[in-house]
């Protein structure tokens, strides 16, 4: 019972701290978002805005994702080859 009360108090205190922190955060800046929404289609020619961001503006990030998948496949194949 004592443990339950203590954990409950801890959770409530943590929640209060987090809530206070969240309320201190300034609203997210919208300049980049507005730029993507308004100019994305004419700059990249892609109707799908998600595609225009992840292959147009942030293609380098996508290249990194591809490398991660490549390494994962290579790792699986090497480990399985060692098992046989």
């Amino acid at each position, binding site marked *: 019972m004592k443990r339950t009360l203590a954990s409950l108090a801890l959770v409530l205190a943590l929640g209060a701290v987090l809530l206070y922190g969240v309320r201190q955060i300034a609203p997210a800046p919208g300049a980049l978002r507005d730029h993507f929404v308004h100019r994305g289609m004419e700059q990249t020619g892609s*109707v799908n805005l998600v595609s*225009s961001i992840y*292959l147009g503006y942030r293609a380098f990030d996508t290249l990194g994702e591809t490398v991660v998948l490549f390494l994962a*496949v290579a790792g699986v194949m090497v480990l*399985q080859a060692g098992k*046989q």
Partner: protein
Amino acid sequence: MKDSELVDIVSRKLVPFILLFGCYLISHGHLSPGGGFQGGAVLAAGITLLCLSRGVKDTLRTFPMRRVSLSESAAFLMILAMGVIGLVLGRRFLGNFLPLGEPGQVPSAGFIFFLNLLIGLKVGTGISLVMFTLLREDE
């Protein structure tokens, strides 16, 4: 699993449509929700269904390991090459160097369309390779 007539027939009829849907998702990635990664995952799901219902050995006759693995590496190298071409032509690395075309058409958005095709090929063959290697021992 191989003794079940139902699983065998249904999966064989279903897989071409799954592969077709994957190709649709990849080629229309710049127009509608979807794209290279998602379409590639759907392609790999079709091949995985084939592996599970027919066995890996039969699937490998249609999709030889060597060819799948080669096309994965080739797709990755071609993505890198497209990035370097942008650099050579005086734009950014992975910058668009093709004409944008008319928005809404299937070959439009220049570079994004081709990058989607390559990433779709890369992800589809990559996940298929993982499935081949992981499922092969259970035979």
